[in-house]
């Protein structure tokens, strides 16, 4: 039923679902077709709201019965009061934010926690692509060549952790997934993790 591609797309779902508490209020920034929110609604009974810029994604969310807001991720955060949500989820979208620092900061204001999942661009295979082949990644997750892709801002596990330290954001849970984006591993994450998921909160 699920293709390998689908599995990869949903790589962080299991981890995020583990962290989400029963009945939480969840805001998913860049929610796509609303699959994660539908899953969290079914398994955790969350009140979940998605945000996406693309009308076709909105259509799918509406069909799934997932409340969704079509608009700019950063702009919509401004309409919510402090701690309006228990959790703001940013799954595989942070590298496309125009101003990642400002949006993460807003996310931490609106959400008690922010869950961020991203591709580690320092993963060894990605390094080989860049260093030896001189090419950007082209695989089932990034199927489009550069000229057909959204502008992205790739970064690595250590760069993200540096950022959190500098901005005084506390990292609660974290999980590194191996290159298959399935098995969890802790060793040399910046080199060996293909994907990383963090649970962040305001340092307090």
């Amino acid at each position, binding site marked *: 039923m699920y293709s390998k591609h689908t599995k990869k797309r949903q790589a962080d779902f299991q981890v995020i679902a583990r962290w989400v508490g029963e009945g939480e209020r969840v805001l998913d920034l860049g929610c796509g077709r609303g699959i994660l929110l539908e899953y969290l609604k079914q398994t955790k009974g969350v009140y979940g709201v998605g945000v996406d810029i693309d009308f076709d994604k909105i259509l799918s969310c509406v069909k799934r019965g997932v*409340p969704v807001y079509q608009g700019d991720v950063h702009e919509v955060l401004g309409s919510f009061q402090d701690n309006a949500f228990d959790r703001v989820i940013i799954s595989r979208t942070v590298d496309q934010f125009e101003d990642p620092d400002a949006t993460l900061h807003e996310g931490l204001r609106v959400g008690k926690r922010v869950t961020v999942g991203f591709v580690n661009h320092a993963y060894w295979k990605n390094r080989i692509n860049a260093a030896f082949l001189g090419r950007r990644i082209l695989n089932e997750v990034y199927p489009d060549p550069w000229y057909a892709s959204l502008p992205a801002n790739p970064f690595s596990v250590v760069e993200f952790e540096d950022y959190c330290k500098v901005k005084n954001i506390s990292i609660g849970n974290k999980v590194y997934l191996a290159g298959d984006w399935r098995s969890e591993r802790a060793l040399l994450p910046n080199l060996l993790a293909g994907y990383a998921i963090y649970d962040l909160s305001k340092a307090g």
Partner: protein
Amino acid sequence: MVESQDFVSLERFQFESGGSIPELRLRYETYGHLNAAKDNAILICHALTGDHHCAGVYSMDERKQGWWNFMVGPGKPINSSEYFVICTNALGGCQGSSGPGSINPETGKPYNLDFPKLTVRDMVRAQTLLLDSLGIDRLHAVVGGSMGGMQTLQWAIDYPERVGRYIALACGARHTAQAIAFNDTGRQAIITDPGWQQGHYTADAGPGQGMAVARMMAHITYLSDVGMQSKFGRRRRSSAKEHFDVEFEVESYLRYQGQRFVTRFDANSYLYLTKALDRFDLHGPESLDATLSAVTAPGLVVGFTSDWLYPPQGNRELVEALLRIGKDASYAELAMDYGHDSFLVRAPKLYKLIRNFLQR
């Protein structure tokens, strides 16, 4: 083929303003069949100068179909094979429902300006009486655009137990200063027309010029700059002789719209309805969040990028407030060039959205 019906309530109808009329009449049309459980009804609320005739034709040789014929009918997004669709002429209107032009049974003369001050809430309450008479406790959905969107929101706020879901298109929580300004300019064109006679005009001599100008101006606000440019551009007509004859196609179009409006709409109704819209304000009496807290049904609000009368921001604001207070609400935005009228034109994306929401 369809035909309209009249609902008449002989009980005195009280308006929010305190006024009342001795009997209430609502003209309406239905499409499809009410099921045995009476839970498949969808109410459609029309825009300012719309009417109860939203789908089909009255006779086989009639070319003009109902105003939302793309949207409503067998197999259409609001599928009358599945749902029992009801559309009423709004209270205060002039196509068969009680309004300023109706005869007051107590005097035998038209109400004219004796018709009580009207609100969107009054329009909605009148519709509940029709539903009572049809034995419908709860609607599967309420759907409307523009003034119809405001009624839809009012439904969700005032009668949460009777609304299964709602779809409000091209609307907002209240008029902007600009929207009020346009409405009042239209009203002034009518009121200052000598034919208006303090509202006591007769059918064959009314404020025709004022109505036509009001309509021409309002019509501009329903379109968009880009839409008008692509529809008319600077195209000219060859027939212009005198200096101020119709010269450009856009002039011809607007004058035609203005003239047609004089014959199909009542001036006092226009004054009453536009006032009701200007006064509509979900931010009051306390705040938008407080007003919307009564809503229980899931909602869908749709904005249109080129709508400068009820711009996307006003539509977004509704959903932002609903989400802030933990309601099930969605906002979608369609990039279309038809301005405020976008919700009335052929738009497959909108059809899909509405279909998805009604079936979820």
